[in-house]
């Protein structure tokens, strides 16, 4: 500055002033830089932190969508219960932390004061259950079974119950309309786990502490659609948690309703007929084991032949799915999954697998044609078949002499198929297999879709197995050590002999294996749903549909209907004329074959019936009964583990289901009015303008013996006894851990694939 020399000031001071000036402005620059860093560079992050800081969320769970039958009858819906809950924030504002209010509340609810206060305390590492581990801003449910009287008392004396509310709240209900329990198809819900919440944290649909997750059946497959989106009210709070405003809130979006192809009326009949057939089988004497049949499990599938849609699907033993509502009790859980339970949670229609027996012969017949044999040539149906001294009996029929393949199917002649399979085995090189064996019989089974899931829209379907060369080899590799160890023992019993044989040549496809395989015995495993898919494909001209239960998804307001179209996963490896011949032969089974004695008087001219019976041997157990059948509209496959013969144990039940569908009486007369579903339900139920779905009234079922379910305390019972476990939104209240990982050991026909 010009005035410095004028003042004559010495340079030292001037220099130092400049130093001070530089220091001062570098400090200011530092501040500016830091300000830029916080606000511009990292501003987004701090913005997020700021909004988390003072926004508290109150979650209002979405109403779960209903699962409806094909005509709109709810199979699973929600029931309104009076839930009394307490607002912790309100209680804590009181001088005594709400103690007086809670004491009064306990009195009105007829509960212990301690039980009530325990429920509203917050969980921490030192607090044992019961305690609240949700958000402290969330109303804490005290009870869900308040009576109207109690709710009115609380509401009318609101000044005595500040912070307490009594609101009707939706709770899942499996209504079993017309006795259609449908347990395994519907599945069940259980509270969300911490792990699942964490996993869903960053996804489109984060889970809330109060959420219930579908664990099995349709509840699981369509979980995300059914669940909807929980509503969140965001309150801005200050540093002391006082509400100072309302931030952006999302209203709850109820879940979509799922319309299924199940017909509740027919479902009830299928369940009842299956149960009746099993009970009847238990009265039959089994000559092989010299005791009555155990009939320990069974399944029946009713499918639309032209679409693969499931009209009914029953599995026995069964249970009441309401046992899961509100958290299952430990005792009930034991009853449903324990060793002695016989695993009623399994859906044996898709998770039970067994050797198919003679219903497999349609595959063998197709394989023979594909291998070059003429369907109409004559083949010798001898009474027994001899391979190198080993005698294979003709199990289900006697010797018929030379017959064509159609007749062999009708009378289920084993020896015809033995002979064909043996010849193919020899062509493929016998004990010294060719490099690339044709393996017609095995290839055809794969082409029919065996050995893999059908793709039904239900979880945990099992694949069954085709015991082809590859499987043999893998199986041998996995077991040879055990076999060879057993073979070294000096015992001469059956198991040791088999082990010895397996150890020596288990890797080989032996003649006996191929012969046995051709009539559906041995190591082959199939599920009822696989066989239903195959037989409906024969019915519809060859399309293997993915079976489906879900038919449409209807948005809660009814405006958006998303139909689930049938999809197919393949075609049968059959020429059209072969299909026609097989079709005719299967009709013959009903008119003058192995099922004829069960279908006497059936109006075959009006409703052509096709069927195949099967009786599969299971080592160490009684035979498995199979019955596969179809008309032009429907396919029904039924199986009973340790139930006896196909036609004997399952035939009458299957006939009764058809009779109900078509309105056929015992003498073969058709009463259209009594027919429940003479042709498949094509249309979706009518949806009203307000989004509700019209449902026809279901007549209360006739007074027949109800299907026995696993002995759990069903909702109704618990209501009567007033001991119903609480339905709370609190996942931490330790209902038994979600049983998705519970794997029961192999049941007779059932295996849980996890």
């Amino acid at each position, binding site marked *: *500055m*010009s*005035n*410095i020399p*004028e*003042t*004559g*000031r*010495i340079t*030292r*001071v*001037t220099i*130092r*002033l400049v*130093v*001070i*000036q530089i*220091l*001062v*402005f570098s*400090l*200011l620059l*530092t*501040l*500016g830089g*830091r*300000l*830029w860093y*916080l*606000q*511009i560079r*990292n*501003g*987004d*992050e*701090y*913005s997020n*932190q*700021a*909004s988390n*800081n*003072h926004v508290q969320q109150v979650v209002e769970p979405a109403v779960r969508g209903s699962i409806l039958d094909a005509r709109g009858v709810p199979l699973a819906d929600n029931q309104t219960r009076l839930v009394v809950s307490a607002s912790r924030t309100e209680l804590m504002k009181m001088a005594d932390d709400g103690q007086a209010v809670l004491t009064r509340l306990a009195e009105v609810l007829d509960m212990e004061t301690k039980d009530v206060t325990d429920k509203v305390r917050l969980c921490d590492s030192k607090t044992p259950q019961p305690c609240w581990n949700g958000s402290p801003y969330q109303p804490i449910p005290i009870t869900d079974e308040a009576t109207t009287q109690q709710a009115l008392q609380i509401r009318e004396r609101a000044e005595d119950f500040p912070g307490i509310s009594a609101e009707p709240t939706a709770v899942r209900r499996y209504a079993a309309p017309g006795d259609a329990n449908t347990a395994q198809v519907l599945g069940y819900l259980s509270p969300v786990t911490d792990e699942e919440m964490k996993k869903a944290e960053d996804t489109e649909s984060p889970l809330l502490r109060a959420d219930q997750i579908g664990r099995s059946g349709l509840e699981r497959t369509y979980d995300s659609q059914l669940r909807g989106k929980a509503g969140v009210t965001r309150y*801005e*709070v*200050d*540093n*002391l948690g006082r509400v*100072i*405003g309302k931030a952006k809130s999302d209203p709850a979006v109820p879940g979509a309703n799922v319309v299924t192809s199940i017909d509740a009326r027919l479902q009830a009949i299928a369940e009842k007929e299956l149960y009746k057939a099993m009970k009847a089988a238990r009265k039959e004497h089994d000559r092989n084991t010299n005791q009555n049949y155990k009939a320990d499990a069974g399944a029946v599938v009713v499918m639309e032949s032209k679409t693969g849609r499931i009209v009914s699907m029953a599995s026995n033993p069964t249970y009441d799915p309401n046992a899961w509502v509100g958290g299952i009790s430990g005792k009930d859980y034991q009853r449903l999954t324990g060793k002695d339970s016989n695993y009623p949670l399994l859906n044996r229609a898709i998770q039970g697998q067994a050797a198919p027996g003679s219903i497999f012969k349609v595959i063998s017949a197709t394989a023979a044609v594909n291998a070059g044999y003429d369907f109409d040539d004559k083949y010798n149906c001898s009474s027994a078949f001899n391979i190198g001294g080993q005698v294979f009996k003709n199990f289900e029929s006697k010797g018929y002499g030379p017959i064509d393949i159609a007749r062999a199917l009708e009378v289920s002649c084993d020896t015809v198929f033995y002979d064909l399979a043996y010849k193919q085995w020899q062509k493929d090189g016998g004990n010294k297999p060719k490099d690339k064996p044709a393996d017609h019989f095995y290839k055809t089974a794969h082409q029919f879709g065996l050995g893999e899931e059908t793709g039904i829209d239900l979880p945990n379907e099992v694949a069954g197995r085709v015991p082809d060369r590859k499987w043999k080899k893998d199986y041998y590799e996995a077991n040879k050590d055990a076999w060879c160890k057993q073979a070294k023992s000096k015992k001469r019993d059956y198991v040791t002999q088999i082990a010895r044989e397996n150890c020596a040549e288990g890797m080989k496809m032996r003649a006996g294996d191929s012969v046995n395989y051709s009539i559906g015995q041995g190591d082959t495993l199939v599920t009822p749903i696989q066989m239903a898919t195959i037989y409906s494909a024969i019915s519809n001209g060859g399309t293997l549909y993915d079976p489906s239960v879900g038919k449409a998804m209807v948005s809660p307001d009814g405006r958006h209907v998303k139909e689930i179209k049938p999809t197919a996963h393949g075609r049968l490896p059959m020429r059209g004329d072969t299909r026609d011949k097989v079709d005719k032969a299967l009709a013959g089974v009903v008119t003058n074959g192995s099922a004829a004695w069960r279908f006497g008087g059936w109006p075959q001219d009006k409703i052509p019936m096709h069927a195949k019976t099967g009786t599969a041997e299971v080592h160490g157990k009684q035979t498995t009964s199979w019955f596969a059948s179809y008309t032009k509209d429907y396919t029904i496959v039924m199986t009973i583990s340790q139930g006896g013969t196909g036609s004997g144990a399952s035939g009458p039940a299957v006939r009764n289901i058809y009779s109900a569908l078509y309105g056929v009486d015992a003498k073969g007369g058709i009463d259209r009015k009594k027919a429940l579903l003479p042709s498949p339900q094509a249309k979706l139920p009518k949806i009203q303008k307000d989004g509700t779905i019209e449902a026809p009234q279901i007549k209360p079922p006739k007074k027949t013996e109800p299907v026995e379910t696993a002995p759990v305390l069903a909702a109704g019972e618990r209501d009567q006894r007033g001991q119903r476990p609480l339905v709370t939104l609190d996942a931490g209240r330790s209902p038994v851990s979600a049983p998705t990982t519970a794997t029961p050991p192999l049941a007779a026909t059932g295996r849980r694939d996890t």
Partner: protein
Amino acid sequence: MSASNGFSVRRFSPEPGTWGKLTARDSIVRRLDWTLMFSALALSAMGAVLVYSATRNRTELTGGDQYSFLFRHTLNTSIGLTLMVVTIWLGHRTLRGAVPVLYVLSVVLVLAVLSPLGSTLNGAHSWIQLPGGFSLQPSEFTKVTIILVMAMLLAAKVDAGDREHPDHRTVLQSLAIAAVPIAIVLLMPDLGSVMVMAVIVLAVLLASGASNRWIAGILGTGLLGIVLIWQLNILDQYQIDRFAAFANPALDPAGVGYNTNQARIAIGSGQLTGSGLFKGSQTTGQFVPEQQTDFVFTVAGEELGFLGGGLIILLVGVVLWRACRIARGAPELYGTIVAAGVIAWFAFQSFENIGMTLGIMPVTGLPLPFVSYGGTSMFAAWIAIGLLQSIRVQRPISA
């Protein structure tokens, strides 16, 4: 004593004059540094709005009158302006004669704080409660008197033309004189004020032209003092806590680090333009403690964003820039030293205050000059502006 240095200094006679006198070409009004004035006034005005925003919902502070703090901040500013005018009117040379009296008075006041008259706030025993709900923080005035007394001593021989630079004896004298009130403030303990005073002492010595050895010695003593204070556990736990939180706010976000963390969230969330005045959720939600006083900058950061926060820093910069001009233009060493002391005071205190809200300085209880709510600090700051102005108006007009 002023005219004897041989320079032609035109002395202004502060007689109550007519309008014509005031507006004459070389009148005092014309010669005032209006940029400095309006920058400081702008800071005070922004302060009023920010203090209002921070307190309007705090009923426990305002007693229900949401404008209470706005009113009192404006009143404080008016009193401050009056004190500035009085200071200009008296002129710093007149004041120079009264420095010994002012010094003794301020020492008595800080001593009174230590007596039963004083009261404790936030761990520091640095207040005197006055009747009517007012309180006084004498250490603010002490900053002014330390500047004045040291300037008086150090400049005496130089301005008289006896020496080119202050001699060792004078330096020692001035240091001893300054040490008395500093020691008392340290006993309060008001560590923040002690830091400001130490910086003032350093700047005053620098500007006085004292020998480099003194500067080095002061710096060395300062460092040694910090080491000693740390080693000998002289600090109270709350002061150590504050420091720990500055070093690592994530250490205990619910406890010690809470203030700094919330302050940083408030400022960071403001981004470029801020959430809008009175719309800051951190401010409305009262997440930042002491937001009308020490943490007032966070209100600006959140509600006015980078633009508002930057404006405050810019205005502080303008004040300091004008002060630097005055320091260099002062005709006597006395004026230069006083201006340098004020510069050091404002610069360091602003840096410390804003820096702690930004998380680059430890938390101490220092107000942001002109902006923070607080009467004594406001008065002292405006008195300092008055001193700067009177130095400026008394400088010779270039021919």
